């Protein structure tokens, strides 16, 4: 009985312990086992060995959970937060900026920031917002379609060809439901493809909600046009990209999509996708963006978090990240600013057969949407497509 009481009291005390000084709590979306594994193994061990930092990965179902938590922290005046580093971009960064949740422009204080082309608009702007150094670029992504070349003998190259292919092969295509990240990108990209590059660039550069409202009906009519030919006649849109990938793996759909061009190769190597899987982008373009990491205003270990970010921007971490065995996420480093040996480290990484070349990807690049209107598009998708 005595021992029971002592155990309980010691447990009670241990439950109010604080993290050690050299810990950094890194919150990221936890739905991808490969990313989780890479962070837990390579990144953690390098940080421990080189900088004596204990990295603690905090898995999130949705980055918005963390943002919402930070908003509550700010509202209730919580100074010692439980997140030191956060992986995010786009609308989430906008929410942080609008609610004053960021720390300071720490990017320019980082050693490795000199290897990044900070003036490049795709790096300086996060979904149309200038981050001004409050977040650091980490990697880049571009939307691609993944198809099974054994079944799709004539892969579509334009939006019209895609539409025809969907109609000729009913039940073999579907997209995830927004607000899933990839589903959301797909509908934005479809809008860009329907408008065409010029009209879309015009819309983005001279943006107004009215202009957007005028163009959106074109998107809804296209989505409704293909709906009867979707998987299960569009009765249910998978709520996450992983469910769509599972369907692709099962062979019930013949096309899927992803925001990382090297996902296909990674999945083939793991045996989840068929060996005949390949990627494509449409001539009308593919949405591309950079993703970032930021340090919240109430991080408990800000300086250590800075060290972690600097490490993540280093050539070794970026090359390791690029390797499709680990993650396959593209680097943000500017090749022209790197030394020849460092540039070689990036170029020597084999992206795999299924991944498109950087040249093709770069040519297809289309800029992303302004962050503040993305949730509006997602809401309208729900009311136009789902709620009958």
């Amino acid at each position, binding site marked *: 009985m005595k021992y029971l009481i002592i155990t309980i009291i010691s447990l009670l005390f241990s439950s109010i312990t604080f993290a050690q000084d050299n810990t950094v709590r890194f919150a990221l979306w936890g739905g991808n086992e490969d990313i989780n594994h890479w962070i837990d193994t390579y990144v953690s061990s390098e940080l421990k060995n080189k900088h004596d930092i204990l990295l603690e990965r905090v898995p999130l179902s*949705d980055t918005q959970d963390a943002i919402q938590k930070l908003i509550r922290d700010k509202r209730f005046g919580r100074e010692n937060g439980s997140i030191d580093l956060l992986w995010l971009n786009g609308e989430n960064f906008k929410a942080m900026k609008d609610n004053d949740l960021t720390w300071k422009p720490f990017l320019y204080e980082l050693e490795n920031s000199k290897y990044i082309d900070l003036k490049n608009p795709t790096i300086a702007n996060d979904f149309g917002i200038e981050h001004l150094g409050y977040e650091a670029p980490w990697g880049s992504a571009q939307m691609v379609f993944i198809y099974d070349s054994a079944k799709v003998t004539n892969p579509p190259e334009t939006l019209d060809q895609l539409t025809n292919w969907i109609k000729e092969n009913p039940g073999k295509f579907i997209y995830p*439901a927004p607000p899933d990240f990839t589903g959301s990108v797909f509908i934005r990209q479809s809008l860009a493809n329907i408008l065409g590059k010029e009209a879309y660039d015009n819309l983005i550069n001279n943006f107004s909600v009215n202009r957007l409202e005028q163009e959106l009906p074109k998107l809804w009519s296209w989505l409704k046009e293909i709906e009867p030919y979707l998987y*299960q006649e569009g009765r*249910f849109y998978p709520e996450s990209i992983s469910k769509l990938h599972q369907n692709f793996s099962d062979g019930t759909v013949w096309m899927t999509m992803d925001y990382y061009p090297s996902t296909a190769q990674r999945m083939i190597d793991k045996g989840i996708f068929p060996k005949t899987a390949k990627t494509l982008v449409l001539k009308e373009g593919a949405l591309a963006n950079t993703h970032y990491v930021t340090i919240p205003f109430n991080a408990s270990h800000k300086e250590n978090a800075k060290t972690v970010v600097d490490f993540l921007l280093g050539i070794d971490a970026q090359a390791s990240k690029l390797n499709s065995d680990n993650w396959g996420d593209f680097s943000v480093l500017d090749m022209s600013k790197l030394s020849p040996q460092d540039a070689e480290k990036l170029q020597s990484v084999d992206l795999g057969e299924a991944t498109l070349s950087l040249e093709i990807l770069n040519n297809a690049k289309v800029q992303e949407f302004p962050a503040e209107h993305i949730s509006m598009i997602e809401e309208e998708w*729900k009311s136009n497509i789902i709620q009958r």
Partner: protein
Amino acid sequence: MEKQHNSKIALLSLIFLALISPFGLFIYAFFNVASESIFALTESSLDHISIYELIFSISISAIATFISVIFGGLLSFYLLSFRKKDLNLGMLNIVLVLPHIGFAYIIFLVFSDTGFLFRFLHTFGVHSNVSLVNDTYGIGIILNYVLKEIPFIVLYLLATNNTKNQNFVLAAKDLGAGFLQCFYKIYMPLNLLQFVSISIVIFAFILGNYEVPFLLGSNSPQFLSVSALNNFQSINIDQNIASYLKVVIIFVTSFIVSILLRLIFRSSK
């Protein structure tokens, strides 16, 4: 006099103890949520509450409760006729302790359109495009709760069964009553209190649960608890208020249903 005095002290200390216990915290939490929603209510926050979702959630919960209680009751009545030593409820015990979220995964893996069941049926030539999970009728959700709660109901009814009632059952059987007749004319009425109690608990649980409808529900209509959490996580203040209101609605609905069922029970006595 002394007894009255003692009992007054006992009553006061009971009330005091209840208030400082987790129950008191519960009351505090409820008033907090109620005040944040009811007093901060605006028209735009009401936009985020859909009557259709409310009706959907309540009907799915009611159907799932009804089916699982009836089947659980039938099964426990059936099991009562066994000799005790023949009865081994091994698997039911295991299902009982499993987390609901784990069981929901199993239902997903078995009953989804490319799940185990349909692959199995396919080998016998049964091709179908039906999806039992993530459908708009909530079949997957009902299936999950029925399969998960039946062991719970069976064990509860077996444990609380009054052995004196067995005599009535035997008498009825001697007079030629069938299994179903014995069940709903004798077993259910004699154990009505247990049936009512377990139905209330299960209904309230299903209505308020989050993980299962999230995993097995469809895009629309969503369960009230799922949309409540979505609203809570949103950056929009109106949605936050709506989320609190939805929680209050769920709680009040369960409370009203429990009172209704108890009244029905009292009146049927």
